[in-house]
């Protein structure tokens, strides 16, 4: 043991002091049979103690349950607004916005590219007017909002700020997260607009803007979810995600921002897949690795910089179109893994999501599923309840070992820089190749019967015809096109043109921040695509090399 390392007794004493200070929920912390249980078991470091393997806070869910954040978005802004209100009325505690594919790609609803995709897989947002409808009647100072958007994240964040300020809510009061994780777009989700380097410049501009003006806003949600959905292994999800995180840290530090100014507002987003123990090991390893790297490599001093706080979503890709009701069981297991893994917020997938966007009933069952995990299973009473178990500790170490091997490879690629290594891995097809290989390996194993997927390659009796799917009718597209045309007609075109010129000017000046001129443009009701194009003239576009 190193000389200054605290003893177990000292760790426990420090933990108990933290717990004595913690504000706890007023419920009995006991089993359903009435046996009182301690807030943690086993050895330290305990939850809230470096390197945070066992949790980011001492009291974990005894103080506050994870945020039940259900991702929703479809059709028009009004449709989604109604779903938001329904989720809030049913005990949802945060909002999460799904945008349609044109919005995610920075295209307006009237673009030829958007035909057939308007409002299909999320909500269409073309201008500030749509953002006003989306959050109409919702007090944005009282909810935390997550917005899943990346390529045009700066513009959508600007619209959210502009809507709030029109309603008298100052930007500094806004709490939430914008995904804004462009690296994983090139690696997995493929919703990029500009090439990597200018895209990262926009991300660092947003980090600087939110650090200065939006203290309750998470500027980047570094996301492994999509990497996993695209077919990676658990360890690849972990490693690519954290490497992307290190890359943003290096980019922001290179832009002159102190690590402790922005790192506390970085958050993460992981997948909770079906291999229960592997997932729990992954979550624990994520916290440990992030804390170590931020402290030892990037010199972070603020404890909050070291905390890997993360959102979790159950694995959409694990849901089967066959016998979809059984997905409820899969989701429950995955939700439990997320809770045992110490997640800060959780989205549970709806059972019908392998077929279509969820119906209202399916979304409610999904929310109820995590409510059962939270309130009935007792999992919220004890932090890191599996910590100390030999298998879980081994799995945590194994995840870390595999991740460190990948970091070493990226460092090699980048001549000592993770940021350059990530750029290089995007350029040379490393990430997409690794993911495609893992995905195909899995498919072959399922195909050969080496892996059983219930209702797909075994236990297939009992299939019924599909019923009750959510359908988005074509009137959504017509409605949205008319809405956009109306906004364009009513706005002051000269003001729009001037504001867009300001955006282009800021994009061309590497010392400028693009956020203020984008805010001006959206306030003038410039469309999403107009702002995208105003920067595209400077930044160009990205086209992926098509490799299998």
């Amino acid at each position, binding site marked *: 043991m190193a000389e200054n390392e605290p003893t177990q007794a000292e760790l426990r004493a420090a933990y108990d002091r933290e717990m004595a200070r913690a504000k706890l929920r007023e419920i009995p912390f006991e089993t359903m049979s009435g046996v009182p249980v301690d807030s943690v078991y086993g050895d330290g470091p305990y939850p809230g103690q470096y390197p945070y393997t066992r949790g980011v806070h001492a009291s974990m869910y005894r103080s506050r349950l994870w945020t039940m954040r259900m991702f929703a978005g479809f059709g028009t802004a009004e449709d989604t607004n109604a779903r938001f209100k329904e989720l809030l009325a049913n005990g949802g505690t945060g909002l999460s916005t799904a945008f349609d*594919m044109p919005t995610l790609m920075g295209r307006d609803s009237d673009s030829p590219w958007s035909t057939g*995709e308007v409002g299909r897989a999320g909500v269409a947002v073309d201008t500030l007017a749509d953002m006003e409808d989306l959050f109409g009647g919702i007090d944005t100072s009282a909810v935390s909002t997550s917005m899943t958007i990346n390529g045009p994240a700066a513009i959508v964040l600007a619209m959210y700020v502009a809507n709030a300020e029109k309603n008298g809510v100052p930007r500094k009061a806004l709490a939430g997260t914008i995904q804004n994780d462009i690296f994983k777009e090139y690696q997995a989700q493929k919703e990029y607009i500009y090439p990597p380097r200018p895209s990262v410049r926009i991300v660092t501009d947003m980090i600087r803007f939110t650090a200065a003006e939006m203290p309750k806003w998470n500027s980047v949600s570094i996301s492994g979810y999509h990497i996993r959905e695209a077919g990676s292994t658990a360890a690849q999800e972990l490693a690519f995600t954290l490497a992307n995180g290190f890359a943003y840290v290096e980019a922001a530090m290179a832009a002159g921002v102190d690590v402790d100014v922005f790192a506390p507002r970085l958050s993460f987003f992981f997948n909770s897949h079906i291999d229960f123990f592997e997932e729990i090991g992954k979550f624990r390893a994520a916290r440990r690795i992030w804390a170590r790297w931020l402290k030892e490599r990037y010199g972070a001093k603020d404890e909050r910089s070291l905390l890997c706080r993360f959102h979790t979503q159950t694995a959409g890709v694990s849901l089967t179109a066959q016998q979809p009701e059984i997905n409820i069981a899969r989701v429950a297991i995955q939700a439990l893994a997320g809770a045992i893994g110490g997640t800060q917020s959780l989205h549970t997938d709806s059972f019908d999501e392998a077929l279509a966007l969820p119906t209202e009933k399916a979304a409610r069952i999904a929310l109820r599923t995590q409510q059962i995990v939270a309130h009935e299973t007792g999992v919220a009473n004890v932090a890191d309840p599996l910590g100390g178990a030999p298998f879980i500790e081994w799995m945590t170490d194994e995840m870390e070992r595999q991740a460190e091997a990948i970091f070493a490879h990226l460092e090699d690629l980048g001549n000592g820089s993770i940021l350059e290594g990530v750029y290089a891995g995007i350029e040379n097809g490393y990430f997409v190749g690794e993911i495609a290989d893992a*995905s195909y390996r899995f498919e072959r194993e399922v195909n050969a019967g080496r892996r059983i997927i219930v209702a797909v390659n075994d236990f297939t009796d009992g299939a019924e015809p599909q019923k009750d799917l959510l359908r988005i009718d074509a009137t959504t597209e017509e409605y949205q096109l008319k809405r956009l045309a109306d906004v364009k007609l009513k706005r002051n075109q000269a003001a729009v043109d001037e504001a867009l010129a300001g955006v282009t000017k800021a994009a061309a000046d590497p010392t400028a921040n693009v956020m203020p001129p984008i805010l001006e443009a959206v306030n003038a009701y410039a469309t999403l695509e107009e702002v995208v194009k105003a920067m595209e003239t400077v930044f160009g576009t990205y086209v992926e090399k*098509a*490799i*299998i």
Partner: protein
Amino acid sequence: MSDQPENLRVILAKLGLDGHDRGLKVVARILRDAGMEVIYLGLRQTTDSIVSAAEQEDADAIGLSMHNAGHMTLAPNMVKALKAAELDIPVIVGGIVPDDDVALLHEAGVAAVLGPGASAEEVARVVRDAVQANRAGAQA
């Protein structure tokens, strides 16, 4: 029609903005492993770009992957674009297509629809069958 396997040339593409390419890449490898020649166009293709690739590559079939509920617009558009270019090439749609839409897609001229969970053998067979049926239809 001989029973000898031949090197079918299959174009695989994502039409439109949808970026979900996991399934299409798996299908690409399945067809390649089944002895077909895969022309993988990848993401963000238009009906025009697919038509011109089909002409240049002398394609036997076109596979489109759709995961964003845009299939009822995009797939029929593809069929129409091929017809307009006087190309008689079967279009196969894979991805997330509700059962009710499968018949509608057939009516719109889509040769086959492959859903989630299709085995590798099924994927290769459906492509071969679609090509054969198309040739038989052309001879009739």
